[in-house]
């Protein structure tokens, strides 16, 4: 597909909007359907579309393996870190009320960071699995 002009142009046009939609799903998840899991998958789908049209090597150049692997663990650590932050501030593990002077604001803050952790891990895992599968047939072994 690397020489198909229509696909290349359309994919390039769609990518920013896909990313924007992923961010919308992520941050509007408090008010409408959506959340970290869905947003992570949509963001990963954008990179996979890029890899399908422009080739895996280009995608690996834009989003290298070490970054994806860091995302994999970083999301879980971010989630657990929110829990530890609650612990440090005198609450229970994953207690969001203590994250802000106003308990409702604290809940907002906790949910925001937890959802961010979910999104980072999910998109990292999806991308890593895709990289692994797509890279297997062609890597010189």
């Amino acid at each position, binding site marked *: 597909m690397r020489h198909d002009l229509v696909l290349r142009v359309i994919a390039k046009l769609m990518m920013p909007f896909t990313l924007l939609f992923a961010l919308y799903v992520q941050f509007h998840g408090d008010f409408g359907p959506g959340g970290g899991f869905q947003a992570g998958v949509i963001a990963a789908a954008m990179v996979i579309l890029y890899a399908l049209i422009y080739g895996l090597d280009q995608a690996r150049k834009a989003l290298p393996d070490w970054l994806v692997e860091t995302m994999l663990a970083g999301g879980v650590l971010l989630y657990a870190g929110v829990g530890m932050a609650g612990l440090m501030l005198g609450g229970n593990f994953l207690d969001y009320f203590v994250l802000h002077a106003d308990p409702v604001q604290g809940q907002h803050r906790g*949910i925001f960071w937890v959802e961010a952790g979910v999104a980072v891990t999910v998109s990292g895992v999806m991308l890593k699995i895709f990289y692994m599968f797509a890279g297997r047939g062609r890597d010189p072994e």
Partner: protein
Amino acid sequence: MAITVIVLVRSRNLFSVVVMGGIYSFLMATVLVALDAPDVAMTEASVGAGMSTVLLLSALYLCRSEEAKSLRGLWLPLAVAVTTGGMLVFGTLDLPAFSDPAAPIHTHVAPRYLNDALRETGVPNVVTDVLASYRGFDTLGEVTVVFTAGAGVIALLRRRRNRKQAGPQ
């Protein structure tokens, strides 16, 4: 959906099986929207129809795209499938009727979530409230499961490459 499943079962070409699986997932997503579960529908559409289709296609790229003829008879798998399906249907007989307001699930914690979630967390989407706040531990576990899946894939696929590199030396 029934037509999709019949075509899915009868088809021998794995490429069309994967594409039909994607269609089935999209139909499932519309069913979930009809059941007023847009969060789940979104997940189904993006993971079931999008992501798993891409992953299956990339796996298909590595092997032949025609299903091999089964060597053993079909009766044992059929019996297992029918028994499992029958037991699952038998299990659903005990469930309360669909959208029964007196069902246990609607009388335990669900009213508290629906009534107090906005006041307690200030987030109008109750699904997000339950997922991230009330059931934060469960979601942490889920994220860990996803992480473990990714780590497992890395471990499996990477070790094989190393072994092959070490082989001829």
